């Protein structure tokens, strides 16, 4: 992924600085994941799931949207085959995440990549792709932090809390926790915008996602946004002085002592 010469090249951010940024950004994701996991636990409890069943979904499936949908379909008396097909449909977008991360992780052992795949979620993708692009390469500790510490552990603990003690705790939406997930995804998308193409891809992804989501189904909308947005982005010419594809992104002020010369979007 290299660009022709003549463009300003970015210096990758220091790994430790990028990890600090990852941990700080992850705090908001932890709050969001905990709130959603708790609500999932509550919903599972209300639907008659036992703690083992609710937790096994969170550990083994580890995909929030399909877990919520499964509760509705189990309650509605759907066949297991229908639930499984719906799950495959809802989670198809993960293939996009996996494909986008693959070039960074291609040198890792196959078994390790297989393990990395299980904890690939919306949130872990958003945090890790931003981190990888900041430093210009893969960073496994950063990935594990994003996937395990920021998402897997909070999601599972919150599921357990929701299904065991849920009724005694107020609705998380009272504290605005339900807004954090879409806000985090939007904020992380902004952070990935380093030029005209990325901006176009993001806008096209959002517009096509909502259009298809309204016309058909939200899951189809997300998939359509992820597929169509880059097509529109590719059709957009780069400005001559835009950063090359390896350009890293910066959330917030540049840490002291770092000189990067990169300005997002």
């Amino acid at each position, binding site marked *: 992924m290299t660009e022709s010469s003549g463009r300003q090249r970015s210096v990758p951010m220091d790994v430790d600085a990028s990890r600090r940024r990852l941990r700080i950004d992850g705090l908001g994701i932890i709050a969001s994941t905990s709130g959603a996991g708790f609500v999932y636990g509550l919903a599972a409890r209300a639907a008659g799931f036992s703690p083992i069943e609710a937790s096994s979904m969170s550990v083994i*499936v580890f995909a929030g949207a399909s877990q919520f949908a499964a509760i509705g379909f189990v309650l509605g008396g759907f066949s297991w085959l229908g639930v499984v097909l719906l799950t495959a449909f809802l989670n198809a977008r993960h293939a996009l995440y*996996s494909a986008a991360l693959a070039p960074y992780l291609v040198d890792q052992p196959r078994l390790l990549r297989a393990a990395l*795949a*299980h904890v690939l979620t919306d949130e872990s993708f958003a945090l890790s792709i931003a981190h990888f692009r900041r430093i210009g390469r893969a960073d496994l500790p950063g990935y594990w932090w994003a996937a395990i510490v920021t998402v897997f552990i909070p999601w599972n603990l919150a599921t357990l809390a929701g299904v065991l003690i849920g009724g005694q705790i107020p609705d998380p*939406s009272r504290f605005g926790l339900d807004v954090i997930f879409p806000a985090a995804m939007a904020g992380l998308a902004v*952070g*990935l915008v380093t030029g005209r193409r990325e901006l176009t891809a*993001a806008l096209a992804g959002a517009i096509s*996602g909502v259009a298809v989501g309204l016309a058909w189904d939200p899951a189809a909308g997300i998939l359509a946004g992820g597929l169509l947005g880059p097509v529109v982005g590719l059709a957009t010419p780069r400005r001559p002085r835009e950063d090359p594809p390896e350009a890293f992104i910066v959330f917030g002020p540049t840490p002291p002592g770092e000189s990067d010369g990169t300005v997002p979007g």
Partner: protein
Amino acid sequence: MSTQLVWLAVLMAAATYPWRAVPLLVPAVHRLPRAAQEYLRLVGPAVLAALAAVNAMVAIDSTRHPSLHVGIEWPAIALCVLIVAARRGLLLGLVAAAGLAALARALGLA
């Protein structure tokens, strides 16, 4: 304690894992044509923006029928985007977004 749905979880995982794993495990993904690599690079902003927009603007009822949702989520997300774009940090943006939503709800405005 019932454990019957653990098997459903296993089947759901079997339907999910290939999406997550296959592209990561396909050999020679780094030798894709340049246009394909550029496409994959743009997937990040596109899919995250789609996730945010669909989550905030599309609501579904119990039969998964979609409808346009208008609510406090819109200005809350816009506030977060503005804060991140002003390079003030994602965490501050998320706190501001959640705070705005909580305040509006407490005041009965949302």
